[in-house]
């Protein structure tokens, strides 16, 4: 056969593809500006089926990858809460049937699995996530399909979504109490050390604004990527700056490298204590070093004396595969499932819009291990007590400071006049 005819055939084939593409483009859907399909409102009809005697829920946690060590605990406590609720008759009389998905510490996987849970498994709500990056990957997807996502970890605030409920602390329930505690202690100089991603960067931006207001001087600020463990050169800068306190927003196993470099540099909790927002009962023993004498700011500690905490600790210790200690993020995850139950029962329906309406019109509360929390139906966060704990020799926390009452959630820091109004406006505008 001649080469010309072969070329022709290739051309014809390419032409056919081109024509197909043209047809594809001609037959497509809404364009920007169309009223019928404004961004976010074009969600397909929900496929959730609650006509039987069960309700399907999705749990989305990283069971593999770098965050698995933390998120497996969240997944496990969600299973425990499921067992408790099912033993107690379920939600609106329907037993929970869960679909567990692995986010694999990969943000696009979180987005993909969210879509799968909502459109293939048709779950009524999704629980999980840990890093802010995972939440930011899930957010557009739950908004697109008008689903529900319950996020259980303290975070940097400055966010709200009709499709997300936040059961961890926002900044005014963790970061700001920590700063108040430091100011009360007479701290004059502070060094900021964090992982290089959205939570530490944003938290430190807020800390700097508030520190200026409190008269605390920031003497340095260092970041190391989430997956890197070598803090030697950064800690050398801390040792040279001689701050009164170190504010630690490092997340995950990078903390181990940080603590090692800290002691190697000759720093001690007596002279340069650390206050952390990501080291809890679970992490403290894993630091590979004595961390007694350092501080952490959380809402829940295992050592809290509340009516419900002893039973929570007892049940958790008895639960299969449990880590044996309770901590703030897993307690917040435990709250999230019960909060959902309370919301659905107040709404009398699993429908997302009905649940959101109930959140706004009714007072939703839950007797959590950290105390009786109340949902703010407008911003979808919950009230929380502020606590500062000091690590003791048993890697438990002695509570050294507590807020005088539960702190109402204020994700956009509207009640704090040191937070510039123009920045708040830019942020809310950008959030759209």
């Amino acid at each position: 056969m001649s080469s010309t005819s072969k070329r022709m055939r290739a051309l014809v084939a390419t032409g056919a593809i081109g024509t197909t593409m043209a047809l594809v483009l001609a037959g497509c859907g809404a364009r920007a500006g169309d009223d019928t399909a404004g961004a976010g409102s074009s969600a397909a009809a929900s496929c959730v089926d609650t006509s039987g005697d069960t309700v399907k829920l999705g749990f989305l946690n990283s069971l593999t990858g770098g965050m698995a060590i933390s998120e497996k605990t969240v997944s496990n406590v969600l299973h425990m809460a499921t067992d408790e609720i099912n033993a107690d008759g379920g939600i609106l009389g329907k037993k929970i049937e869960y679909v567990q998905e692995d986010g694999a510490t990969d943000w696009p996987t979180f987005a993909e699995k969210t879509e799968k849970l909502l459109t293939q498994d048709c779950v009524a709500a999704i629980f999980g996530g840990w890093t802010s990056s995972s939440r930011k990957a899930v957010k557009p997807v739950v908004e697109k399909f008008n689903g529900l996502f319950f996020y259980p970890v303290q975070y940097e605030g400055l966010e709200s979504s009709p499709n997300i409920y936040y059961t961890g602390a926002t900044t005014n329930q963790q970061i700001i109490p920590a700063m108040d505690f430091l100011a009360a202690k007479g701290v004059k100089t502070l060094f900021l050390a964090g992982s290089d991603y959205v939570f530490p960067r944003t938290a430190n931006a807020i800390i700097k604004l508030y520190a200026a207001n409190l008269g605390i001087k920031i003497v340095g600020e260092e970041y190391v990527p989430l997956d890197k463990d070598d803090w030697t050169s950064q800690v050398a800068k801390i040792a040279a700056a001689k701050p009164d306190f170190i504010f630690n927003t490092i997340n995950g196993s990078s903390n181990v490298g940080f603590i090692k470099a800290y002691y190697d540099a000759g720093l001690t909790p007596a002279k340069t204590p650390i206050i952390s927002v990501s080291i809890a009962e679970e992490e403290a023993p894993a630091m590979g070093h004595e961390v007694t004498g350092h501080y952490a700011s959380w809402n829940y500690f295992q050592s809290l004396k509340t009516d419900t905490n002893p039973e929570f600790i007892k049940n958790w210790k008895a639960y299969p595969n449990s880590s044996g200690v309770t901590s703030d993020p897993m307690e917040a995850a435990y709250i999230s499932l019960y909060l959902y139950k309370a919301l659905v029962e107040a709404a009398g329906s699993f429908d997302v819009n009905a649940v959101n309406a109930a959140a706004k019109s009714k007072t939703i509360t839950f007797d959590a291990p950290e105390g009786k929390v109340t949902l703010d139906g407008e911003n979808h966060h919950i009230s929380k007590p502020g606590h500062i704990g000091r690590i003791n020799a048993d890697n438990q926390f002695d509570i050294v400071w507590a807020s005088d009452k539960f702190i109402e959630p204020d994700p956009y820091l509207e009640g704090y006049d040191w937070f510039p109004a123009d920045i708040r406006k830019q942020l809310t505008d950008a959030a759209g």
Partner: protein
Amino acid sequence: MTKPRTTGLKPWISLSGIGVFAVLLLAVAPLVLTDHWLNNLGKYCCWAIAAVGIGLAWGRGGMLVMGQGVFFALGAYSMAMHLTLETAGDRIPGFMVLYDPLAPLPMFWEPFRSAGFTLLAIVLLPVVVAGALGYALFKRRVKGAYFAILTQALAVALAVLISSTIRETGGDTGLSDFKYFFGFVLNDPANRQMVYLIAAALLIVCLLAVWQFYRSRFGELLVATRDAEERVRFLGYDPANIKLVAFIVSALMASIGGALFVPIVGIITPAEIGAAASIFMIAGVALGGRASLFGPALGAMAVGWGQSSLGSTWPDGWTYVLGLLFIVVILFLPNGLSSLPARLAAARRKPDVPPTPAIAAAELEEARS
């Protein structure tokens, strides 16, 4: 001229194969798959487009490109910056406000407001970068493990650079939350199907392109360069130029795959372009058969599918399955799963002949025909 019967497919069979593949992807898949799986298939198509390029550079050209994530990133981030700006409108993108509320939009973002510039960048950036890099490396006769390590290091470096420039690139969190795609509302199922069809159609175009390459004089030279670079040089050709063309084409394909990955998956992060992601792209190619026409694309799609479905039902075990499969293929089927029929046929005829030369002969035969 009469040709001896070889184990390679005749060109018209390959072409019909592409035709069948096109019908399956463009007509059958949209009819039988749910929106979710169609979207996933679109994602696999993006990896497959990059894989077709790897097949060209590695399978036929012998260049172990371990850093295709770099070119995947050029396309993906070009597209993501444009979609981010399209979503933000006149405002500064939300994530930038978060880290430094008052600073302006970084300079290098500005041109990506233009749709035309973005499309041009997706095509030209990888060509320029791969051209400069390839020229420098191939003219200095850098090859083998040195070339592989160098490309891999680039992917690592780029991922670290993106992670550490959080305000400029979104850092580790990446870029996401795109509302529009060149004026189309991305949430509309019809538009999502359109994006899928574009990805599937471009995969077919890439397959046609390499089909044509492999049959051309260039394809013959490329295989010859892979197997006996010095001889090609003595015959008066410059192997550097031959390899450069293949490297540039493979970079272009990776960039196109990356660009379409963004509207389909809705997020791009450094993890999708770094060392692990680059190796992941290679894994599919090796499994499928790096030197064959369909092997790289089908291998990449199979690995992608495995990640979605097996990774769901068996999160802890899936990576072991992939690793085991990889070892088995490397040990027993060095030319990938697509060489299985040829090997079986060869084994039936002449049990003693090792299969590798037969495959190489088949490739040359295919190129010559």
